[in-house]
């Protein structure tokens, strides 16, 4: 049992998302940086998709009423266990009564806390992640509040040997987002396409799980068009009428009607999830082969690292 003393800015229960419910308009959602959640879970012997906590900017203060094994991954938010600094990417044993808190850090956005056994919440539509827009899943469909109590599942027995530090391929979160052409790319002129790759964009501070809002050179369609709403996927680079792009995140609405000029590749979605307010980013065009190779490298690295255990 974990008691939430203070909730932090936006702390939610997340797994890797609930897939297969588009017929009722439900987006998969899940951890914005799924790679970091998987790293944290592997460190405590959980299945990679076990439910953990996604912690945003300012972390919570949690008290563990029972012994627990935890690990932190993703952004370094300055974790402290009973006041002593604890590192990311380590399996940590927590004694009953211990308090986990976060001092915050300048260059970080989303951290992930995995607890051996996973966070136990009622399953909704086959998943444990929090659908904030729909108000269901996770802990009552909302962010953690002071006074909440979280249950954990039964932990798998952990052997003595531990995973070493995650390889760099699992940790890099850069500021260049590799993209493929968007589904409406032909509606944008050459000028906009060139601007997309030639300029820097700045991350607005009102970016969130729904999308990263950017400021920079204005992009535009060759001719104004109202498009039908269609299903969208994370990474889509939408351009509303105002010309400032939005890169859709995991909590995108299930359908959208803004034209899409580009699409961030799957391997760079973790980087998207860690973009900080006011960070300057660029887009780089790649082809499908490069996108596939990048994802394959990540997955092979994760699989290989996760095997070096026990």
């Amino acid at each position, binding site marked *: 049992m974990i008691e939430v003393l203070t909730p932090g800015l936006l702390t939610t229960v997340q797994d890797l998302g609930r*897939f*297969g*419910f*588009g*017929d*009722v*308009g*439900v*987006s*998969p959602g899940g951890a914005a940086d799924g790679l970091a959640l998987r790293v944290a879970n592997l460190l405590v012997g959980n299945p990679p998709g076990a439910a953990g906590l996604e912690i945003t900017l300012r972390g919570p203060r949690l008290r563990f009423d029972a012994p627990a094994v935890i690990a932190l991954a993703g952004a370094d938010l300055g974790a402290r266990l009973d006041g002593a600094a604890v590192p990311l990417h380590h399996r940590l044993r927590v004694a009953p009564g211990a308090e986990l808190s976060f001092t915050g850090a300048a260059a970080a956005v989303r951290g992930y806390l995995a607890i051996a056994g996973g966070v136990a919440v*009622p399953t*909704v*539509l086959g998943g444990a992640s929090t*659908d904030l*827009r*729909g*108000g*269901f*899943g996770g802990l*009552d*469909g909302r962010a953690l509040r002071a006074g909440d109590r979280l249950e954990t599942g039964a932990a798998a027995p952990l052997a003595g040997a531990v995973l070493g530090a995650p390889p760099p391929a699992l940790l890099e979160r850069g500021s260049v987002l590799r993209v*493929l*052409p*968007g*589904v409406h790319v032909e509606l944008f002129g050459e000028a906009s396409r060139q601007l997309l790759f030639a300029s820097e964009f700045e991350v607005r501070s009102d970016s969130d799980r729904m999308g990263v809002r950017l400021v920079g050179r204005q992009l535009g369609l060759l001719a104004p068009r*109202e498009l*039908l*709403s*269609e*299903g*969208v*996927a*994370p*990474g*889509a680079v939408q351009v509303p009428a105002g010309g400032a792009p939005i890169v859709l995140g995991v909590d995108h*609405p*299930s*359908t959208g009607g803004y034209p*899409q000029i580009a*699409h*961030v*590749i*799957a391997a760079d979605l973790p980087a998207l999830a860690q973009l900080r307010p006011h960070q300057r980013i660029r887009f780089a065009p790649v082809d*499908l082969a490069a*996108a*596939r190779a990048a*994802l*394959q490298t990540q*997955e092979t690295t994760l699989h290989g690292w996760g095997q070096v255990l026990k």
Partner: protein
Amino acid sequence: MSEAPPLPGFLAAGDQALLVRFADTASDAALAAVWRLAAALVAQPIAGVVHHQPSYAALLVRFDPLRTDARRLEGALRERLAQAVEAEPAAPAREIEIPVAYGGEHGPDLESVAAHCGMTASQVVAAHSGARYRVAFFGFVAGFAYLSGLPERLATPRLPSPRPRVPPGSVGIGGAQSAVYPSATPGGWRLVGRTPLVPARFSNQPATLFAPGDAVRFVPIGPAEFARRSQWR
């Protein structure tokens, strides 16, 4: 006897999704094609496909790029499309009546819709509740049913900026579309009324009042009846 379905275009939406687009404008034929393909994916799943999202005239299919690729997936989808034409007709749609308290506190934009349409509020209520709608698809947020069938003369542009919170159950008009908000989300549509019934719930026993293909009719009720029947906490 179904007409020949429109042949779709296939567009990569990133490296994890394929957009199957039947048309650029909404039509009954395109919507039927979307649902035929969606049903085929449920009845006969394609290896590597993890999710699909219907809309007016397109189906987004998400896949695991380590298990399949866009080209293989397109081939499998074309097969499903060819088979789907011969499929059994879908179960007959139901007719669902939704009680709605129009105007006042439950429909704060009724007057502005009336003004835009050059009608009185009563005329808007009569036209809106007199129409027969069909549930086209669910999108935007869980349980948000896009309805087709809004009378053209009621089409009203969205609000200049969205409300941060739309009361759940609100009945909205957005451009030429109409829908019932299932939960308290931000929203830019014009709110003409509110239903006391919960259109969709996803905690506890997930359930939706209506399904794609159902016919929906709105029945005007007064505020007292709304209060008596309200399922909203």
